[in-house]
């Protein structure tokens, strides 16, 4: 496990090196800092699907903390930053505490994954999405243009748009950033009656997840969803059913902003190279044409 954590860490370093090597300004330094925060001391939540009984207490606590209208939601939305998705299983697996009563399905808490290298934040042209030092990826409504590139970029299809509003905003889970800044955990975790949710330092949660899997290898599938996905996420899942049977998307292991950076990093070179080449060509061709029009002209 430690070796694989090191590997994940190395790919992030590599990404930082790419950014560092081609940084054009101070703007990039803040990225490096944020990524450092997420890597070293960021918070996360461990979600244990095998423990979840689908009581939707987390969803109710979120809505109450945000002053959203109460009730159960069938999808994420502007007033449903988290909800509990019911997933039918291809073949029944008895539930650890509910037994055969929940063998045909699992209930899965869904919310923003708070990626360590968030694609949405890198996509936003005006920096309306950014990562706080504690790890949450948060949204500043007053900056947003409404281009919805964050929705395109998100590999987990989390951000929701206020389509019905005249002046719409993007909405998503904030990982209770304001509570985290005061040293408290998120509202949803405190509401879970069966400890299916555990809040803590991401590194501690990874160790905890590995411990649970190692102690009950018959119960858990040997995978932690979010450890390596898109370079790692603050939200981590362990499960007693394979993740592909639970409708979790298969995503790349690399951080998504790195895909963009490979092209964007070439721009300063492109501007200089193309500018110099075209200027040189323009001058050379103009001089040649002048010579051809005035052979033996005195000015040259």
């Amino acid at each position, binding site marked *: 496990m430690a070796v694989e954590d090191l590997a994940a860490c190395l790919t992030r370093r590599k990404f930082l090196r790419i950014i560092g090597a081609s940084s054009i300004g101070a703007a990039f330094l803040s990225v490096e800092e944020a990524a450092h925060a997420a890597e070293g001391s960021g918070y996360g939540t461990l979600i244990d699907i095998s423990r979840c009984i689908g009581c939707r207490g987390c969803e109710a606590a979120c809505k109450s903390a945000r002053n959203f209208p109460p009730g159960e939601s069938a999808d994420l939305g502007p007033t449903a930053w988290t909800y509990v998705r019911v997933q039918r299983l291809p073949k029944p697996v008895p539930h650890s505490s509910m037994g055969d009563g929940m063998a045909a399905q699992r209930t899965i808490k869904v919310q923003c994954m708070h990626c360590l290298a968030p694609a949405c934040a890198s996509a936003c042209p*005006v920096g309306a999405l950014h990562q706080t030092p504690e790890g949450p990826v948060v949204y500043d409504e007053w900056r947003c*243009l409404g281009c919805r590139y964050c929705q395109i970029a998100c*590999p987990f*299809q989390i951000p929701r748009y206020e389509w019905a509003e005249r002046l719409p905003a993007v909405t998503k889970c904030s990982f209770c950033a304001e509570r985290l800044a005061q040293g408290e955990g998120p509202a949803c975790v405190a509401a879970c009656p069966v400890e299916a949710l555990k809040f803590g330092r991401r590194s501690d949660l990874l160790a905890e997840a590995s411990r649970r899997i190692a102690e009950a290898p018959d119960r858990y599938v040997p995978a932690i969803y979010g450890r390596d996905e898109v370079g790692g996420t603050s939200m981590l899942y362990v499960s007693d059913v394979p993740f592909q049977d639970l409708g979790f998307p298969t995503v790349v292991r690399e951080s998504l902003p790195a895909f963009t950076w490979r092209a964007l990093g070439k721009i300063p070179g492109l501007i200089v190279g193309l500018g110099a080449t075209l200027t040189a060509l323009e001058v050379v061709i103009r001089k040649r044409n002048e010579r051809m029009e005035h052979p033996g002209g005195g000015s040259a």
Partner: protein
Amino acid sequence: MNRLRHLSAGQMTLWLLAVGGFAVAVARFAFGLGAVTNLSDRFPWGLWIAFDVLCGVALAAGGFTMAAAVHVFHLKRYEPLLRPAVLTGFLGYVLVVVGLLVDLGRPYRIWHALIMWNPRSVMFEVAWCVMLYTLVLGLEFGQVVLERLKRTSLLRMTRLALPPLVIVGVILSTMHQSSLGSLFLIVPGKLHPLWYTPLLPWLFFLSAVAVGMAMVVVEAFLSARAFGRTLELPLLEDLGRATFVVLALYLSLKTADLAMRGALAMAFLPTLEGTLFSIEMGLGVILPLGMLATPAIRQSAGGLAGASSLVVLGVVLNRLNVAITGMLAGSGARYVPSWMEVLITLGIVAAGVLAYRLIAEHLPVFPPEETHLLSATKIAASESMVYGSPARLP
């Protein structure tokens, strides 16, 4: 007389579309995007981004290719084609901005990109390119306005600034055309492998250069019809040759990329993606390549116009496929544009055509009168005298 009545019927349709589009745009701002579009959280970009923005920018590429030919490479014989191309580019970009303002949730904040920087965002690059290159095209076209206003001294002064301005324009265009491809680099899990490739920026740029020249040819034919002008056929045939070279490069790069990523076989599967990809490549790339390679077709007015139109169709299909077809399965969503989305898009196109007509009628967009007096044969002959190129008579 008959011809005039036909034209006014066409113009009537254009006006109806423009007014209809404007009415829907008002409804969009009054009732929100949800009431007018079929967009959703799983499919947040639709026809407006795919056509109005992606195709709009690509089809405006004639402005920078012609400007580079005339002012950087000093290929003076292309001068008659420059102004119509710059005008198309300028109008194209203005219309892209209009389309963008309709699509943005908070269009009045568009200036935020000027002061709230995020240089890691492709959309940030796109925003700056749109703003700066629209300005450059405006300045380039400003020459025509100055000429009309008979500001000769100002015209002479600004002419000196043209080569550097054009070079800036070429750099901005290169960045902008390629960055529209780079927009999709961040969705490796969503965009279908027939279109997702790290080469997206290169492919977008190459296809834009090809379609820029093809658009100049198509436009020359359309305005020859509309304004009763003679065609500079040998010049257009040269453009057809250049289009062939760039398009051939595009096809080789695209094929090699598909083969190396092991995605080539997907093109022949009877899926939605495979079918639309085959139409895009077959009708929009391979068929026009074959036509342009055949001298008899390339040298005939109809053949050249047909091949160029297919290139335009191919690039339009490509942009629609990248932004819509290729994103459907990966997003797990359904999307067909609503009639209101379609009407706004048609309205924007119609407004563009009307504006082009109006400007072409009142400003010296086309070369001076003498061209009218000469017959096509005389032009070809006089050109061969000046430039020493063999006259290719129709």
